[in-house]
């Protein structure tokens, strides 16, 4: 897809440096939680991964609404890119959460409302991706996936609120009042690092989507 643009290069370097800083502080500087020990450090990657997944699907939602109103293929490309990256972050959230769960809860998985709704979240956006890959007509693909992008987003607040609404094994969301300042700042640093990684992936994926679109049109023209 050609050499990286200046924006891509800058974001890539910033993402790499901030991830290194976040990992160093998270693993070596900040003391671990008294009750859980070192395994609590998984919080610094599990939490940010989950937040970024939510952000990705929120972007899919906004872009899908915009597409349905304006029918501009640019919105469709951003939505598709964001959904794909959101799936990556959701898988990461689940895998890191399973490791953390095994060490603290004693099990990798249980069908509590938080874990169940998160599994459904993954299914929705994997389904979104499947739908895209099987629809050949560009306009139909964009329209169908925009509809899924809007309806599917309903689940995001449900995942977030699941630990408040229902009994779960998963703990409720952390807040500045429930987290010691050192641990909170480390979490914020890693959230910033993850956001930069997301931004880097996003600009690359959107450019790739644009190139894919051009290729599709050229192939259609030649055929």
């Amino acid at each position, binding site marked *: 897809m050609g050499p990286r643009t200046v924006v891509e290069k800058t974001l890539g370097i910033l993402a790499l440096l901030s991830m290194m800083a976040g990992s160093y502080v998270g693993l070596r500087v*900040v*003391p*671990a*939680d*008294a*009750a*859980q020990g070192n395994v*609590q450090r998984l*919080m610094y990657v599990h939490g940010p991964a989950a937040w970024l997944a939510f952000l990705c699907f929120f972007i899919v939602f906004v872009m899908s609404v915009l597409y349905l109103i304006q029918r501009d293929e640019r919105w469709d490309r951003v939505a598709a890119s964001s959904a794909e990256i959101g799936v990556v972050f959701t898988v990461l959230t689940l895998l890191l959460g399973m490791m953390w769960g095994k*060490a*603290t*809860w*004693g*099990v990798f998985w*249980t*069908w*509590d*409302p938080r874990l*169940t*709704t998160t599994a*459904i979240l993954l*299914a*929705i956006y994997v*389904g*979104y991706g*499947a*739908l895209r890959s*099987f*629809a*050949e*007509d560009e306009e139909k693909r964009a329209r*169908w996936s925009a509809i*899924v992008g809007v*309806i*599917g987003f*309903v*689940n995001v607040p*449900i995942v977030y609120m*699941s630990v408040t*609404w*229902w*009994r*779960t*094994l998963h*703990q*409720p*969301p*952390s*807040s*500045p*009042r*429930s*987290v*010691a*300042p*050192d*641990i909170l700042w480390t979490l914020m640093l890693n959230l910033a690092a993850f956001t930069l990684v997301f931004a880097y992936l996003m600009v690359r994926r959107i450019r790739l989507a644009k190139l894919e679109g051009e290729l599709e049109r050229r192939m259609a023209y030649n055929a």
Partner: protein
Amino acid sequence: MNKSKKIWAGLGVLAIAGGIAMLIAGGLSSNVVYFLTPSELRAELAERADEIVDQPLRLGGQVKPGSLTWDAEALDLRFVVADSLGEVPVRSTGAPPAMFKEGIGVVVEGRYTHEGVFESKNLMVKHSNEYEPPHGEKPEQMYESLIKSDG
């Protein structure tokens, strides 16, 4: 689109619709009960013991302080799961998760037997959303001292 692709696309849409339907039918209603509390289990037993006894279910509550016994040779673990209104004795085999101790929240999967004991097949430990370094002040106290040092 050829036929097989159409089928796959249809399946994809069905999966999404199914997921959302599950959410609306099960998830959005208020009666999603992941575990019963000890007092709820007691009430259920009083009401319809024959439907509850020996059926798989989850029980969640606090490990009552002072109730824990552990036979390391037989790997036999006994404790009482309690809430403010009720208690249920639990028997579990095998080593518990590392964080297990008296006073902590647990969810146990198993059956309430005719002997009046909950036989646990799976013992899970809850942890809180509070995080603090060892021997540190509570976060609330840290904020208070921060505010005070500012003033």
